[in-house]
């Protein structure tokens, strides 16, 4: 054989132990289960203010579109091919929190406080008609939100072989 088996069975011992504190500093992901959500809570009315200050330039008034794309489902009949948005496409509400916190605003990524992200998440859910204006979003309530398009998602069924899928 061109490659010995030893390579794939040895333990090498390189790398260093990492502390929980070090992990916590960059472990920013949020799962559908709610794992990873921080303390705090948000409401749409507060979120609207932040959105108008920090997001509207790229995503338009009410999040209905711009250079950064539409975030809000529009029923505008003039728009022929519907843009995929949170309201009509996203399967999990936790993804909003995760993504906005890690990547937005595009020109100042990583600049929002957890508090701001909660408010923005509530705002985007409300603007998409998913939650009530007064609903409080937090680590308990966010994972429970049923997204309208959730059921559309199916796993990949392509397998190779002669069948085109």
């Amino acid at each position, binding site marked *: 054989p061109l490659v010995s088996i030893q390579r794939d069975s040895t333990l090498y011992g390189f790398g260093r132990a*990492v502390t929980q504190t070090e992990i916590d500093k960059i472990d920013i992901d949020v799962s559908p289960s709610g794992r990873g959500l921080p303390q705090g809570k948000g409401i749409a009315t507060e979120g609207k203010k932040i959105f108008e200050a920090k997001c509207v330039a790229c995503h338009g008034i009410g999040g209905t579109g711009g250079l950064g794309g539409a975030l809000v489902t529009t029923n505008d009949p003039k728009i022929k091919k519907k843009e995929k948005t949170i309201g009509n496409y996203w399967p*999990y509400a936790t993804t909003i929190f995760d*993504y906005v916190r890690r990547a937005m605003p595009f020109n100042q990524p990583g600049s929002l406080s957890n508090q701001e992200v909660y408010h923005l998440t509530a705002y985007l859910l409300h603007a998409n008609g998913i939650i009530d204006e007064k609903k409080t979003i937090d680590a308990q309530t966010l994972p429970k939100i049923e997204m309208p398009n959730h059921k559309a998602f199916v796993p990949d069924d*392509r397998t*190779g072989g002669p069948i085109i899928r």
Partner: protein
Amino acid sequence: GMLTTAVAITQSANGQAIQKGLNDEDPTKVTGTLPAEVGTRSPFVKSVKKPSDISSRSPLQDFYGFITPSDLHFERHHGGIPLIDPQKHELIIHGLVEKPLKFSLADLKRFPSVSRIAFLECSGNFRTGKETMTPQEIAGLTSQSEWTGVKLSTLFREVGVKPQAKWFLAEGGDSAVMTRSIPVAKGWEDAIIAYGQNGEPVRPEQGFPFRLFLPGWEGNASVKWLRRIELSDEPFMTREETSKYTEAIKDGKIRMFSFDIDARSIITFPSFPQSIEKGWIEIKGLAWSGRGKVVKVEVSTNAGKTWQIADIQEPVLDKAHVRFRYLWKWNGEETEIMSRVTDETGYTQPTFQQLVEARGSEMGGYHLNPITAWQIKKDGRVLLKPENLRS
């Protein structure tokens, strides 16, 4: 140096010597430029990527063989290219593991290494719509390099991945803090943490100092500038695997975690805007499959009526571009030429129409791998035969 030169050598900002002609004398009568620390590209060669704000497409029509020059490798970023000091960058592996660990670039390089030549393709790599499109515009989001790194399985053994771990999150150190959920099985199978590309350190655009590399899988999943891997019992449902990189199929369904790149090929010569002359023509192109080796490439020179076997350049590697070639004597009549590949699973590249039939007319824009047809006009012009995207 003792050489007197009639060509000027300028040093660019990155220390690369640039050859510039001062006159157009007979080069045999002018002592040439000195050897340098870094080589040059001829000033007569103009082959560049086609950039937008979010991507840059490889000039497939200009390539020879199956290696993509590293500086012409396609780009797709979601937050631009970060500037990373490798001394300050680490990979942390944690979550469902016995022993969370962090690795510097130097640590990763101490492990046993592996190299493989493999393609990387963005699953959004398809454009059509008009006759005046080049291979670069149609399919320029695929490139091939020799990748070198440590197997992810080696690191999995070091941290002691727990049996409950079924998925892992791969997270980048760019401004998008790019994240994708990957089945742990792929980590055990053939994933590598790549720090080498075509013999040199991975380029910034491709993830310097190191990236995840998942052979045969859609490019976005091979997270660049990797900083963290978290082992988990479930996928994380990140924005990139829900809002993006999912595709509508029939019955209102949306396919997710569609990682494998379906087999595909494209003729890169002759193609728009080239034109041809009567007589012998070597039709050339690239073919690949994310599911294994290419076993056959066929070419049709009569608009798909009959197909002939093309020559394939060895070595034919797993999950790699191959260069195919087919000798054709053009009689000057109008026709259409096209190629289709078959991979080792027995999958044959479909027509666009077959894709529409399989996925529905509302099908999404990812994982489109249709046969590309080129119209040959009487005067030798070559034009794309565009697909009717929404009929």
